[in-house]
């Protein structure tokens, strides 16, 4: 008898609709491979359902808050049901760009320079007077992003200082804390990492958005972005990119899976932007694409993740 697997999807994070697409696709793949599958849209009935259905494994196809920030992982640890992907601590750190960037920096993994600002420092300490300084120090253009959010929601590239306050308001719509990050020009790549102690990387995906910026629209509108696999980098640079991705994965003690987003600067240095512990699994997502390039079908990929989680 194949194991019974509950696929968690949807929820009420702002990435609900992407998660539903990921989850449905994962559930179909598991059914095709003969697993007994329960699809669960996360709501107030979740815990009772898990307690009564007692699946052998939970597949986490949630994106964003609650699914990717350690919340659901903590809960599953209490119920004592194994799940796919990293545990609570790695999730918490991966989802929080400030924590993960600080760790990267402390361990010699290059990441773009940044400052953080919170709505309370702006409101209560007149932090807006520092914007000019930050602008000078980080150089222009700069990237404004919520400290904790996925799918490029709320991210803006700011070319002129006078547009900075507006971009802050956009980003602060998604999180109370925002990053002002140095803009590194170069080649944007995503590296999927699979495994724990001796993790391996899938082929590096290069992302070339029509608009020059991989924003929400580029991500989810087919044809708005070109992808190259393997990335058009020379062998030595590719190896370095893969090494850095594995180092980030291990540093955050990621179990089984992560996707590391990286910019390779003009001087061929890979700068880690962020690490995702529950990467998208839709038909236009990067991880399944990389797996396919490695000769792994979507079903193979999902089954591999399930096997890793069960061992």
């Amino acid at each position, binding site marked *: 008898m194949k194991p019974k697997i509950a696929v968690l999807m949807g929820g009420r994070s702002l990435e609900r609709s992407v998660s539903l697409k990921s989850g449905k696709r994962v559930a179909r793949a598991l059914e095709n491979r003969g697993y007994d599958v329960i699809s669960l849209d996360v709501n107030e009935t979740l815990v009772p359902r898990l307690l009564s259905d007692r699946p052998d494994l939970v597949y986490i196809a949630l994106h964003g808050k609650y699914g990717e920030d350690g919340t659901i992982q903590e809960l599953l640890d209490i119920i004592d049901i194994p799940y796919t992907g990293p545990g609570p601590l790695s999730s918490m750190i991966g989802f929080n760009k400030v924590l993960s960037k600080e760790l990267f920096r402390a361990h010699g993994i290059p990441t773009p320079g940044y400052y953080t600002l919170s709505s309370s420092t702006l409101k209560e300490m007149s932090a807006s007077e520092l914007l000019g300084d930050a602008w000078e120090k980080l150089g222009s253009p700069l990237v404004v992003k919520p400290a904790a959010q996925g799918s490029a929601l709320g991210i803006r590239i700011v070319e002129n200082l006078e547009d900075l306050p507006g971009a802050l308001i956009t980003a602060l*719509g998604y999180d109370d804390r925002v990053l002002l990050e140095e803009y590194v020009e170069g080649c944007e790549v995503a590296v999927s990492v699979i495994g724990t102690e001796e993790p391996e990387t899938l082929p590096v995906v290069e992302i070339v958005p029509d608009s020059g910026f991989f924003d929400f629209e580029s991500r989810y509108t087919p044809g708005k972005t070109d992808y190259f696999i393997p990335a058009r980098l020379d062998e030595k640079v590719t190896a370095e990119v893969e090494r850095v991705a594995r180092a980030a994965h291990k540093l955050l003690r990621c179990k089984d899976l992560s996707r590391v987003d990286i910019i390779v600067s003009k001087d061929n240095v890979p700068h880690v932007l962020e690490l995702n512990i529950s990467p998208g699994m839709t038909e236009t997502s990067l991880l399944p694409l990389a797996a396919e390039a490695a000769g792994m079908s979507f079903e193979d990929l999902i089954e591999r993740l399930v096997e890793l989680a069960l061992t």
Partner: protein
Amino acid sequence: MSPEIIFDPYTKLYSEVSKLIRSSEIRDLLSVTGRSDIISFGGGLPYIGGLPPEDFSRVLSDVLRESFTEAFQYGETEGLETLRSRLVEVMAEEGLSAEPEHILITTGSQQALDLIGRIFIDPGDTIVMEGPTYVGALSAFRPNGPRIITIPLDDMGMRVDLLEEELKRADAPAPKFVYVVPNFQNPAGVTMHKSRRDKLIELSDKHDLLIIEDNPYGLLRFEGKPEETLAGRDPHRVVYLGTLSKTVSPGIRVGWIMAPSPVVEKLATLKQSADLCSSNLNQMFAEAYLGQDIWKKNLESQKAIYRSRRDAMLKSLEKYFPKEARWTHPQGGLFIWATLPEYLDTAKLLPQAIEQKVSFVPGTAFYPDYTGANHMRLNFSFPPEEQIVQGIKILGKVIRKEIELYHSLGLDHY
């Protein structure tokens, strides 16, 4: 292995029009609003839960028993004669007299908008719309490539004086039509004043204009006296759109167009290529339902529910929204339109509202030129009263916090 990956192998085949379709952050954010734990002011749904299912089930089984073969057969493109005659009676409720021959049944009003866009608009043609306007009309007209002139609204409806100025401009090409929702407008909730209606008809005569009068909410009046329809004033100048979506059910997809004969013929030919005919089963249900007393009885009870929900929302807005905010006081329909200080962008506070489990639609969605960022559309027909109070209270807090943030960044002025 080819290094370049294309997710959608059909990319090269798509038409220019289809390339206008894009993913959007707002649409994705609003996908959360279908959840039962979200207080949704974002939709435009009638409250079907308030209708007695037994009425619908009785009418439907009568139709099945008495007219099975016809109900499950193709029908005429123009729609069932019996239903068209019945709709003449429905329109008479608003003082409009009509002939069944001037009516074309459509699959919801949305099909009517699509057909109208296609028979009247060539790329580059000018059309006139209200600002804000119905988002479904925008999406139906846009693929035909019109140049859209937006005429602002106030509490008395479209600023017809500004339309007149626009028409006087010597260099302005004559518009193909003027699209208006005169009663309890979506999204603004306002109703076009009698003087404005008179003036609009006068302008249409003077400048040889066609008016598209979209009237989905006219029969949802809670108070005050109804205004005469534009079509009633001058049937030769007006293409009139009706629908049962808000007065019976949106699930049956029954709408109609009343227009001068040549226009009806053109529209019917186009409809034939779109879907041959609207569902006979649904039309027969609609005809049978409208022929019974339950129709008006159920409509009255729906109106009573909407009215008290509107009152709850108005009271809550008064209590919880910041003093800088204003909002419309609709005498019917489904929507209230709130206006916040001009520097605010309601799309930017939508994620926080959703985080707090409340949704609404940001103003930019309703303007052809994506202005109107400081407005929000609030639907009151769907959420129950206690949710309305709770949701407006939460929105009020989110807005206050946002105003503080703008203030801290020196952006609270224009």
